[in-house]
């Protein structure tokens, strides 16, 4: 028999195993192809040119995607080679050289890979339009999209594919050359890490795992308060939770199951024999991949929830930073032109004038350990603000409310009351800032920390403040559009009539900009999250498939002993729930704590987007569980 015939024959024989591998390959190739098609799509390229952020985001995501694809393919290949180890051993036993075996395996993989490349690209072409439409919808872009076929995407995909083939070939060569005949014959039915009697050490390690996770969670709650140490605390949290998660999988679970088993005193029963016992033994060996899966899940959930929250609350967040649709400072002429142009266009609006004082002053802390800080302030009158349409309550005389929509992100000390001192002509030279609000009273583009005082205090300050080169008496003119449908026309009028050197933006264009940026963010996060989810789910599925094959003789024995398929399935379902729900559950809890930290970044509520993202994640995971259970069912049914 020639080598060629042998390759074809063995492929035909292994078609069932290949089919799994084949899908894994098609799946990664088509996702990468879709991504690079989008990256090279004219509509998206146009946006990218406007903003460096867009282009960078796509590039970073592309690299991440390649990385995930490679890890995933290596994983699938590894499982695949192990499943065929007896066959590889047999070839060597009958005297074929390792080089020959490696060559045959690489040939098989390459043939398969080429098929997967072709199908993957076809699938990619079909689905890329769907993703493109989704993207256009997300960032609310008004362009027509045709079915685009990007040559650049094809080239990129082929390049990644060649990388994949090179890596898997290397993997095959290493596996074949490193393994001895004996190992090859045992690889299939070996229980890598057989837990006999967990020692005290493992009990301690198990507890350590739990406490590390708990510690990480605890520290994460501190981040909210100590935003100045953000980076260090974040690293600490990551290190401690990831180590904790690893120990949890490696020892804690086995240990808990061992204690449970011990209490059963040998009378374990069928269902536990099929769930608790195999889990206890396999957990240790799966610790690496389970930690990876849990961490990736937690990251993906956090990423999706955060970007979805940003996207979801773009309008509210922008409104908090920019309470007025348009605002100008000391620009009466421009304001008049804008008014008349708006009237020409028959856009209705509310117009108001506001007085303000800008001055240099000092934050005087009540806590002697914190240094006083010099800053520039803007003070507004609450009565005037209320007239201009903002929902504000005037503070007591000589008191002020501090408004800043970015305080928490900037890591400022936010314990109030404290004082603001300024140079005055008499003894009344300070304001007591009684509280602070996480929003602005004036669009954020104007320089100075915003303070709101009562009209009376405002008048007094105007009289007694010492005038120097830093003190300015300002007039703001604010416009609030009553007709939001013409926002874009109004925005154009505004932009063309203010000096572009001044970097003055209006609500609508800022909102539009954020909306597109967050739209891109949610798209990329969603895409990567989807890939994470499918890869981690597939890895778990592959592992369970292998385990099902290995345990096939157990099921045969059980059927011979007279247990029905349904009884056996009950035990298996219990095991699968553990296998999928443990990483998912821990991932969700990790994500919940991460999001708790992330909530600092966002003023608006994140609850709805978080619940939606988590629910989507859970549903897809459960789908994997169902598919796995069905696979087990076919194994058990055909075991006898």
């Amino acid at each position, binding site marked *: 028999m020639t080598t060629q015939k042998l390759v074809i024959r063995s492929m035909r024989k292994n078609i069932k195993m290949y089919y799994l591998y084949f899908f894994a390959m098609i799946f990664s190739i088509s996702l990468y192809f879709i991504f690079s098609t989008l990256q090279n799509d004219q509509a998206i390229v146009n946006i990218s040119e406007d903003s460096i952020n867009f282009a960078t985001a796509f590039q970073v995501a592309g690299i991440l995607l390649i990385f995930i694809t490679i890890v995933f393919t290596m994983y699938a290949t590894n499982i695949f080679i192990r499943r065929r180890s007896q066959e590889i051993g047999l070839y060597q036993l009958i005297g074929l050289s390792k080089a020959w075996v490696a060559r045959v395996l690489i040939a098989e993989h390459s043939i398969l890979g080429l098929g997967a490349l072709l199908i993957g690209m076809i699938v990619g072409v079909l689905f890329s339009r769907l993703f493109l439409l989704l993207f256009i919808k997300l960032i609310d872009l008004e362009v027509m999209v045709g079915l685009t076929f990007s040559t650049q995407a094809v080239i990129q995909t082929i390049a990644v594919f060649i990388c994949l083939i090179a890596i898997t070939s290397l993997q095959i060569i290493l596996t074949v050359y490193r393994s001895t005949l004996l190992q090859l014959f045992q690889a299939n039915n070996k229980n890598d890490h057989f837990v006999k009697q967990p020692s005290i050490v493992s009990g301690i390690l198990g507890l350590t795992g739990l406490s590390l996770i708990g510690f990480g969670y605890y520290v994460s709650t501190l981040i909210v308060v100590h935003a100045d140490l953000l980076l260090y605390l974040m690293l600490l949290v990551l290190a401690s939770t990831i180590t904790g998660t690893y120990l949890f999988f490696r020892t804690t679970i086995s240990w808990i199951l061992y204690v449970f088993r011990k209490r059963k*005193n*040998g009378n*374990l029963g069928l269902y536990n024999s099929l769930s608790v016992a195999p889990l206890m033994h396999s957990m240790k060996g799966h610790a690496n991949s389970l930690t990876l899966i849990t961490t990736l899940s937690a990251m993906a959930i956090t990423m999706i929830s955060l970007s979805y929250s940003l996207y979801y609350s773009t309008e509210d967040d922008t409104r908090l930073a920019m309470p007025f649709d348009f605002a100008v400072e000391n620009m009466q002429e421009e304001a008049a032109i804008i008014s008349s142009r708006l009237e020409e266009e028959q856009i209705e609006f509310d117009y108001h004038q506001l007085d303000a004082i800008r001055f240099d002053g000092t934050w005087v802390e009540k806590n002697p350990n914190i240094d006083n800080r010099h800053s520039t302030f803007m003070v507004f009158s609450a009565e005037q603000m209320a007239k201009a349409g903002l929902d504000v309550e005037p503070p007591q005389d000589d008191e002020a409310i501090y408004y800043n929509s970015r305080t928490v992100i900037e890591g400022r000390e936010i314990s109030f009351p404290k004082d603001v001192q300024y140079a005055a002509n008499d003894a009344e030279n300070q304001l007591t800032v009684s509280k602070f609000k996480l929003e602005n009273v004036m669009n954020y583009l104007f320089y100075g920390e915003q303070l709101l005082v009562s009209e009376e205090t405002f008048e007094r300050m105007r009289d007694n403040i010492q005038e120097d080169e830093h003190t300015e008496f300002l007039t703001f003119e604010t416009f609030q559009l009553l007709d939001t449908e013409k926002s874009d026309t109004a925005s154009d009028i505004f932009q063309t009539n203010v000096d572009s050197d001044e970097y003055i933006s209006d609500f609508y264009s800022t909102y539009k900009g954020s909306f597109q940026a967050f739209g891109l963010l949610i798209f990329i996060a969603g895409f990567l999250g989807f890939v994470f989810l499918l890869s981690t789910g597939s890895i778990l599925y592959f592992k369970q498939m292998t385990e099902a094959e290995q345990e096939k003789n*157990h099921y045969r024995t*059980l059927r*011979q002993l007279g247990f029905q398929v349904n009884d056996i399935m009950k035990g298996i379902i219990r095991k699968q729930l553990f296998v999928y729900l443990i990483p998912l559950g821990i991932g969700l809890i990790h994500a919940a704590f991460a999001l708790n930290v992330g909530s600092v970044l966002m003023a608006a509520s994140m609850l709805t987007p978080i619940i939606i993202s988590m629910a989507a994640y859970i549903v897809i995971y459960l789908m994997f569980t169902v598919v796995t259970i069905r696979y087990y069912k076919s194994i058990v049914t055909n075991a006898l």
Partner: protein
Amino acid sequence: MTIQQTANTVLSAEGVRKSYGSKGNAQQVLNGIDLRVFEGEFVGIMGPSGSGKTTLLNTLATIDRATDGNIVINGNEISNLKDNQLSNIRRRHLGFIFQDYNLLDTLTVKENILLPVSLTKISTAQAETEFNTIAEILGIKELANKYPSEISGGQKQRTSAARALIHSPSLVFADEPTGALDSKAASNLLENLHEINQTRQVTIVMVTHDPLASSYCNRVVFLKDGTIFSELYRGEKTRESFFKDILDMQAVLGGGN
């Protein structure tokens, strides 16, 4: 013999046939077997390779279905039963000892042995007592918390035997139980089986190609080409002389194994 004939029939087979393959190309493995096993008997089934020993055992044990013929276990006619009903019969009435033990390597010795008791109404305390009794007889009580990978072949097979006996089945099927054991472990196990057969009145049907193993039985059935060729009863003979009879019969049958 008279005692046995008055005893209850545990298993009876009439005209059992089994063929494999499609109609045009059918391979007849069992050619009409009639067999009756009485309560308390220890029956050996011998015969050369390809004579249908294992097929007969699997068919009698409801693991495989006969193409034709009737099999009655404990009064239940099994030919027309559904798979789930067959499972129930196996679980309640039958015990199994396999050549390669078929222990679950994720379970300890004790957990393996108590497996058949699960899904039954036997209480934990009762199961514990039963385990102690059987493990005592088979000398594996000390191994209770060991895993199959930690014990010897002989110990594994005794564990497997304990698992076959724990739920007090009416009938135990043993398929080449000594096939993978050295001679000392083999005679050890056979002594155990013999003792259990005598003291607990457990009915055992054992397929073997080893004349020494079948010399522990009180009846040996010889198969050839899918039919029963002959039967030998031990009666009052010593095991040694029964062993010689079996060897003689094998010589007549030809083909040793």
